[in-house]
């Protein structure tokens, strides 16, 4: 039985022991009749994902499928034991890694991290992936862009295929009635993989068509938009249909703290 290899961040992370059949990964694996090998974690940097690919490249066979969720290029895997502490926007960095390391991370993001370097490193990573996919005769590896970023011409990577558009701006944010609102979920996204379940189904179908029929994965059209209003966040029935049960509970718990912190 072929395998579906996935690496990425919260767009593909699955909670341990979770058997949720509604998420796009489960639906896709079912359609492809594949078992899933998922090396994703919430908050992962690209380096974390590439280490997973490097560690597993000899285990991936030409019959398998490989999907890389391309996370933000400005995340860095600073501390080996805390790959999720990769982001300058994390508010509880000191809780995650300790005060001293949080200060070091802050200095890194303020003084060292810069777009010129990020862009080159993304190109290097994609070049490496193209190289490995070519020599190991993998199916064309699917790179799903999580966040808008610059990575050069797609023609530079003939063994890869790329999504048109990105999940963050073209699906996730577009589900909100006001897609410009950055704190719609007040600190904790109630959705699985930052998408309502209805869009998981569409997403799985589109990715399937891409992997099997070589159709470009177009994230800019065909998804349900503006489905999320503030009222629906209070609607238990809607939440059951569209949100992850676990995440919705955490969201409800967290938003009180968030509102207090942000004096809403």
């Amino acid at each position, binding site marked *: 039985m072929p395998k579906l290899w996935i690496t990425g961040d919260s767009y593909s992370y699955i909670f341990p022991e979770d058997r949720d059949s509604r998420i796009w990964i489960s639906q896709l694996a079912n359609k492809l009749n594949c078992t899933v090998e998922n090396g994703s974690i919430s908050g992962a940097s690209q*380096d974390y994902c590439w280490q997973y690919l490097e560690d597993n490249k000899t285990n991936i066979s030409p019959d398998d499928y490989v999907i890389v969720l391309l996370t933000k290029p400005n995340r860095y895997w600073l501390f*080996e034991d805390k790959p999720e502490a990769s982001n300058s926007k994390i508010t509880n960095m000191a809780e995650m890694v300790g005060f001293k390391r949080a200060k070091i991370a802050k200095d890194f993001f303020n003084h060292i991290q810069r777009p010129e370097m990020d862009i080159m490193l993304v190109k*290097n990573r994609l070049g490496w992936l193209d190289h490995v996919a070519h*020599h190991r005769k993998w199916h064309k590896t699917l790179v799903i862009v999580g966040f808008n970023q610059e990575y050069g011409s797609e023609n*530079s990577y003939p063994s890869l295929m790329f999504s048109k558009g990105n999940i963050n701006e073209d699906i996730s944010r577009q589900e909100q009635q006001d897609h410009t609102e950055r704190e719609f979920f007040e600190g904790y996204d109630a959705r699985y993989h930052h998408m309502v379940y209805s869009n998981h189904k569409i997403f799985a179908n589109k990715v399937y068509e891409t992997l099997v029929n070589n159709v470009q994965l177009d994230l800019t059209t065909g998804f349900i938009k503006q489905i999320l209003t503030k009222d629906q966040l209070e609607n238990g029935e809607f939440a059951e249909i569209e949100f992850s049960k676990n995440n919705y509970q955490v969201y409800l718990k967290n938003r009180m703290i968030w509102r207090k912190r942000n004096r809403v």
Partner: protein
Amino acid sequence: MSRLFITGDSFTYVFPTDQNENVWHVDLAKKLNLEIVNVSLWGCSQDFNWRVVHNFKENTEISITPDDQLIVLLTSPSRFWFFEDRPDVTNPNVVDIDCAIGTERAQIASNYFRYIQRSQLDRLSVKIRLGWLASTARQMGWKPPLVIFGFEQFIGEPSDFPELKFSKGSLAENVSSMEQIDPKDQYTFRAYDARFGHLCLSNHKILSDKIYQTLVNNSELDLTTGFIRHFLTPENLLDPIFAKKEFSPLLYGRYLENVNKPLKTPWYEKFK
């Protein structure tokens, strides 16, 4: 005229006022009848060299063609390009860098080495860089780029990158330090290495011949044999005839100026 593109660190950098036709890459370009394009920087990191190669690929005015040859001198993977304006500040073992970049930036760089830099990340980054280079060489139809190890390092299996050629051995461990009486002595030259690219000119000639054979006859570039060894005696270092034959006049002058001064502490040590 086709060109010999080179990027590297102090193993390939030559000061503009210190040009010499016997330096290996100058001699090699002459033998190959190639115009030399050398973008190297003293103390730089691999990321700097890769930025250079990205430019060689993307810059239409100076891009590498299938008739050209690229040589990459692979510097130490633990060097890190911290600050865009100072690609030469990468290395914990250099002295006085803190004076050049300021205490705050030196402290930040020092913390990087103490808390973030690690061999797992270094190894991954080297493999990723080499993968990009191999993929680019294949697609652009470049002659196999020659990767010369400046320093010993782990890259996995060279056969994972069939589009590239690699040296056997490294310049630092197999040529440069072996010129000393005691290869482990880090202070043969005190603070200033008087040699062009850390090699005596006699070994530049040998290196140039070897690389020529590698590029023209596809032979392995073996740095572990065939070089002159153990001839840098304390007497030779002070012998002007020997110095004239083997050293850079500019760097030898700096060496003589500093030879009797006390050794300075590397900047990184000050922030420990």
